[in-house]
């Protein structure tokens, strides 16, 4: 901490801090939000690839049941065939890793950390040390999760939802899963406090709330969701740990008989309680996954259509409403627990209501395209693809949100198709768009357009090959999480779809190679960005130099207008430029 806090307002002393720190303070235990953002990003990409890898292995078993995995199968089991034990572990860990260690850290940790302070014109996050701590707590959570694969009977295998009693009677990997989750939750809580305070308190002169870029709105809404929805899961996690380690019976009813033997617990608990507390988080979590993506896509569409976002205020209110409503729809995940008529009607109604702001958000983006002059850069391609993919994901939520149609579709591949459309070609595409879009800001260089286009077209084709067949498979009544669906007659009939999905998934994996190569190589050898604002962006991050220096802005910045406005010459005008 410095001693001259009283002249804080206009950074006269940014010479110290960034340049004379030792390596480990500058790049490892850094308090600079940009370094932490990159740390989050790199770790999250690693976990995304890891979680994706688990699924690639599972997809072999699904496409070719009980056949040895070629080449690498022997690494996992003696005969090279993925065992059902491993299959369940991989399934549970795929979900956990993708959601809690991959997408959220990338969308909230990396993009939030890097961009929110820049977009509000701050020099850093409000609590830089806390920021560093959130990253390292997240890192520890990740290490615990990875380590759980090496516990005696492997990692958690009760699905990412960890429903008790199954998860309570499961092997030790589940305890590590819970401990890992406590770390991840703590990290998210610290991070969201930081994001909210930064966005609200450190706004630069002239930046009123209604001048926040959509990404800031999205990140703040997300932070509120994390802040208020995660604690119940933390409580539930602690209770499940108590059930597992201290022999309590929060989630264990009386009279359990597991593999022929009466369980020696007091009983009297309620397994459904876990589902309530879990989904109290996990439904808002869906919006935690999607809102940052909505924000990123909004920024990219505004810049690449070269016109203001249509209905900025409507968009903002929709996001806030969406965030609020996301807290009262959670039990639509639990229709099949025997829910009564009154409560199921309540949750169906809230679920139908929440579709309204989603449609409004999509509509504002679609309407922004009207009358635009669309520049097809790689980020814009991904952002454009986000729209129909998100639409499919959203629309297929309807039959799942209505109890009657959910009777047939609940817990089938239809569900998997639905939420993957939202999260994979939805959120992940938006995040990739974000990477391409802000890469020149982060490094001062562009990523290759050619490789980017190859990446885009391969990905968009392959990813639909993965997820589109799932709707048909779900219609056919094939349950999710099946090790080998050919056991069932209706499963065997739908099996060819599995082959299509698996092959598409492997193509999708190959399609990511140019992306990774592009990201790595462009850092040093990419085309140089000719200015601080190569895309013609309107928000504050484009006022900083590329890459932004340690304290972001070398000259004081000020905001003069709403984020997406145009000048008298009918061109988009940055927020930070005063019109002559």
């Amino acid at each position, binding site marked *: 901490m410095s001693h001259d806090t009283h002249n804080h307002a206009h950074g006269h002393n940014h010479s110290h801090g960034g340049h004379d720190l030792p390596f480990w303070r500058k790049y490892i235990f850094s308090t600079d939000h940009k370094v932490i953002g990159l740390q989050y990003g790199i770790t999250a990409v690693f976990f995304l690839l890891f979680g994706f890898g688990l699924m690639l292995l599972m997809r072999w078993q699904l496409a070719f049941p009980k056949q040895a995995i070629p080449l690498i199968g022997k690494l996992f089991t003696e005969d090279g065939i993925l065992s*059902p034990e491993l299959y369940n572990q991989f399934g549970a860990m795929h979900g956990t890793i993708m959601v809690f260690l991959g997408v959220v850290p990338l969308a909230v940790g990396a993009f939030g950390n890097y961009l929110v302070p820049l977009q509000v014109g701050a020099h850093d996050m409000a609590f830089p040390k806390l920021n560093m701590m959130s990253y390292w707590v997240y890192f520890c959570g990740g290490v615990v999760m990875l380590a759980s694969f090496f516990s005696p009977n492997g990692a958690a295998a009760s699905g990412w939802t960890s429903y008790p009693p199954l998860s309570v009677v499961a092997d030790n990997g589940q305890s590590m899963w819970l401990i890992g989750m406590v770390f991840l939750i703590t990290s998210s809580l610290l991070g969201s406090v930081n994001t909210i305070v930064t966005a609200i308190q450190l706004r630069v002169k002239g930046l009123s709330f209604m001048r926040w870029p959509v990404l800031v709105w999205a990140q703040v809404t997300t932070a509120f969701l994390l802040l208020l929805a995660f604690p119940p899961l933390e409580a539930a996690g602690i209770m499940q740990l108590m059930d597992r380690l201290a022999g309590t019976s929060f989630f264990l009813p009386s009279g359990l008989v597991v593999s*022929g033997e009466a369980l020696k617990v007091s009983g009297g608990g309620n397994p459904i309680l876990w589902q309530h507390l879990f989904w109290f988080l996990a439904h808002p979590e869906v919006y935690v996954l999607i809102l940052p993506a909505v924000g990123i896509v909004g920024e990219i569409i505004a810049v690449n259509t*070269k016109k*203001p976002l249509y209905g900025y205020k409507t968009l903002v209110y929709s996001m806030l409403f969406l965030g609020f409503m996301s807290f009262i729809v959670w039990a639509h995940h639990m229709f099949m627990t025997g829910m009564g008529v009154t409560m199921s009607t309540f949750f169906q*109604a809230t679920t139908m209501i929440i579709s309204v702001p989603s449609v*409004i958000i999509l509509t504002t983006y679609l309407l922004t395209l*009207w009358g635009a002059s669309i520049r*097809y850069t790689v980020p814009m391609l991904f952002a454009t693809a986000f729209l129909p993919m998100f639409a499919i994901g959203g629309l297929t939520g309807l039959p799942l949100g209505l109890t009657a149609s959910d*009777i047939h579709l609940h817990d089938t591949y239809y569900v998997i198709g639905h939420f993957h459309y939202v999260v994979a070609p939805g959120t992940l595409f938006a995040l990739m768009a974000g990477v391409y879009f802000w890469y020149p800001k982060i490094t001062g260089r562009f990523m290759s357009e050619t490789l980017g286009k190859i990446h885009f077209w391969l990905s968009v084709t392959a990813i639909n090959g993965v997820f589109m067949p799932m709707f048909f498979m779900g219609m056919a009544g094939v349950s999710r999480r099946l090790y080998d*669906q050919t056991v069932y007659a209706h499963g065997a009939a739908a099996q060819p779809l599995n082959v299509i999905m698996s092959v598409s998934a492997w193509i999708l994996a190959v399609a990511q190679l140019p992306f990774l190569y592009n990201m790595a190589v462009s850092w040093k050898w990419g085309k140089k960005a000719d200015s601080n604002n190569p895309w013609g962006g309107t928000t504050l991050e484009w006022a900083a130099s590329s890459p932004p220096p340690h304290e972001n802005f070398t000259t004081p910045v000020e905001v003069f207008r709403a984020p997406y406005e145009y000048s008298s010459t009918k061109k988009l005008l940055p927020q930070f430029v005063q019109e002559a």
Partner: protein
Amino acid sequence: MEQPHYGFWLPPNISTHGADIDNLISTLHWFMAVLFIGWGIYLVYCLVKFRERPGHEADVEGKTHFVLPKYIEIGIIIVEACLLIFFSAPIWAKVKKDFPKESEAVVVKVTAEQFAWTIHYPGKDGKFGQLKTELIDGTNPTGLDREDPNGKDDIISPNILNIPVNKPIIVQLNAKDVIHNFFLPVMRVKQDAIPGMTIPLWFQATQTGKFEIACAQLCGVGHTQMRGFFNVMSQEEYDAWYNEEEKSLLGDTATSPAGETK
């Protein structure tokens, strides 16, 4: 009894209430398709028409915007409300609330465990025998007390649910260990089997045939193997099977009062 035909779409429906569900599903998908194709056409049109090219400037003032979306939005809300009020809620109420009288239905207990289903018929007396945890072993998966007068004639049918056609069936669903899900794809029946709770459900078959029971909730390592069968029989076949089972339980004295067979 021929094999039902399965494919890439809804499996055949043989229940009385299933047609409503199928109707709702197809209505919903038509609605979704209309919306998606509408958006799609608009999107593609925009992407082509408003691409960046020489001589084309973005209309930053948004003068060309139209008011259609407002009506579309209102339309969507109305359609969703109708789907909920006129389709989903009544179907759910019918499935969950309008139970047939037990006297007119076949009542069975289904108990799920890792990784099998146990189907328990009350026998001729129409009363279920007591279940006692301490009696559970390999041959008695639910711990049925045969000493209990009500339990003597109870039929235990591992993994096979036999039911008569055109007669309502009431299932009392329970689980011994973890949460399972009792899923009859052709019957449009799905209900979590939750330990500690006995949850009722009902359905009525309209065709005979041999079908499958699937577990639709991850229940452990053998989840995929948790496959049961259900046979829908004609009333005569069903009665014949039932009497046969009773006979083998109680000997030829099946028709005599229960007390004598001790």
